[in-house]
């Protein structure tokens, strides 16, 4: 059975069983390897992507629930030469140690800044809570989100996508 997914603004026909979680389709069929498999149980956030602007765990997101919805992965934000403001802030603050959680962290931060460009530190902490980093760079990650927010709210523009 063919399903149609809108990923980063492009329409894709995918053949996976409609019960398949999005993560496996992104990585296996579409070659988008940014989102990572961490726990497969919605407990760590390494697989976080955005669906209709909201952060979701792609490991628990059945393809069947995605018809007509806009999926954004980290590949849709920017790339090495033209990072988006959130990616850039994570680079500047050197928020990654091993980096496995970072794509998920950036996607969760992006979903916050798209609806609230100038969150308080408390709002950032609460919003980022579902995503875990085993290396322990949480404080740098929070600093990166703060820094991205400060730049974006200074410019008064919403968190840009590519």
């Amino acid at each position, binding site marked *: 059975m063919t399903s149609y997914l809108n990923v980063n603004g492009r329409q894709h026909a995918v053949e996976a069983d409609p019960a398949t*979680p999005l993560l496996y389709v992104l990585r296996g069929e579409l070659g988008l390897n940014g989102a990572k498999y961490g726990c497969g149980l919605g407990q760590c956030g390494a697989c976080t992507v955005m669906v209709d602007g909201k952060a979701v765990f792609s*490991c*628990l997101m059945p393809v069947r629930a995605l018809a007509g919805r806009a999926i954004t992965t980290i590949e849709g934000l920017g790339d090495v030469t033209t990072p988006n403001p959130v990616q850039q802030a994570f680079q500047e603050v050197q928020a990654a140690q091993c980096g496995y959680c970072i794509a998920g962290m950036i996607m969760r931060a992006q979903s916050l800044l798209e609806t609230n460009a100038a969150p308080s530190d408390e709002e950032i902490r609460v919003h980022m809570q579902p995503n875990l980093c085993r290396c322990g760079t949480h404080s740098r990650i929070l600093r990166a989100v703060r820094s991205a927010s400060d730049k974006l709210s200074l410019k008064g523009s919403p968190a840009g996508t590519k």
Partner: protein
Amino acid sequence: MNIGRRHVQTLLSGLAVSALCGGLFAAWYVYEPALDRISRPERSAFDMGTVKKGEQLATVGDCIVCHTAGNGPPFAGSRPLPTPFGTLYSTNITPDERTGIGNWSQEAFARALKQGVSRDGSHLYPALPYEHFTHVTDDDIRSLYAFLMTRQAVVADVPENKLLPGLGFRPLLAGWKMLFLHRGGFAPLAGKTEAWNRGKYLVDGLAHCGGCHTPRNIAGGEKRGSEFAGGLAEGWIAPPLDRSNPSAGRWTEASLFAYLKNADNGSHGIAGGPMGPVAEGLSKLDDADVSAIALYIASVMGREGATPDDGPAIDNAQSASTKHPEGADLFRGACAACHEPGSAMSQQGRLPLSALTSVRMADPANAASAVMMGIPAPSGGGNLMPSFSSAMSESQVADLLQYVRARFTNGSPWKDTEGAASSARPEDER
């Protein structure tokens, strides 16, 4: 004509006199004097043993849950309490003299708990469960006072309540109390053990279990004669604690004890929704008191001395996926990693969905709440079960719930699962 007029005059003056008498009676009934301010008692004025006892009792009463805002300082109030009559904000019960209860005497504190009257003489809303606290002994109230007066004083003003028009007029509450506040101490039942009576004293009094687990009437009073028949709490159904509990067969004194003490014991689902913080509070209570509560509740449920007799797990996988193919796909993609028989979580001694009260009960509200809001970890750090409110539409959650109901129970299909999903949507996403 003349006679008629005289009659009217008599009637009018009669009415005026009775209105005046009624008014005077009402004014007398409503009136409560302000009690004098005291200066905040020194910590040294309280004996440590009394303070420690008060700490245990405050744990039974779970004062901290309502009187602490999300991430706020303990007991400093401001937590919004949604009710059918509007939103109340809990008060600051730290010993700050201006914004808390620092200048309340013990007499004022006891009157607030047992009669629902503030130090300044104004009536308190029954969100403070004085219907229950009226049964608490004076000695226990003295200990609670000692505990609260020795907490960290926090300066914190509380927001104004947002109630339906007219309900901000507190003298009305005197009428409410006349109808629903049944004053009186606790009388132990002869022929019952000391532990049973202790359990009843705690359950009916400080623990105020009936506050959620007893249905309320249209004026918000607990229905007499329907004690523990099940009620509502913050959009969740507080299941019946009497014989009509849908999982009665699973409950024993031992499993009730483990559930209340540890929130999760492998013989029952975990404490979810507003029961989560209650179980977290009870984890700090002396085992003897938790046992007494478990014993009393078991007896209300008709399970005193019982052993589990629940029957085998139900799994109608085939017929459920024929009936609800979309729900079956959603379940495989979103839920199976934890809830499919044989999944990693079910290998850890967690129960199949067919054992859960939320799946067995005739109303889908709790199952919908768990899916839409997730189940927060008791420590407040993250979720045990994630929320699916951004992952699926309400109609998809509705179909998923129908599938779960058909697969894991032999009960009749749920009605209006989409409505249940919509009501369970977290407030900040509406």
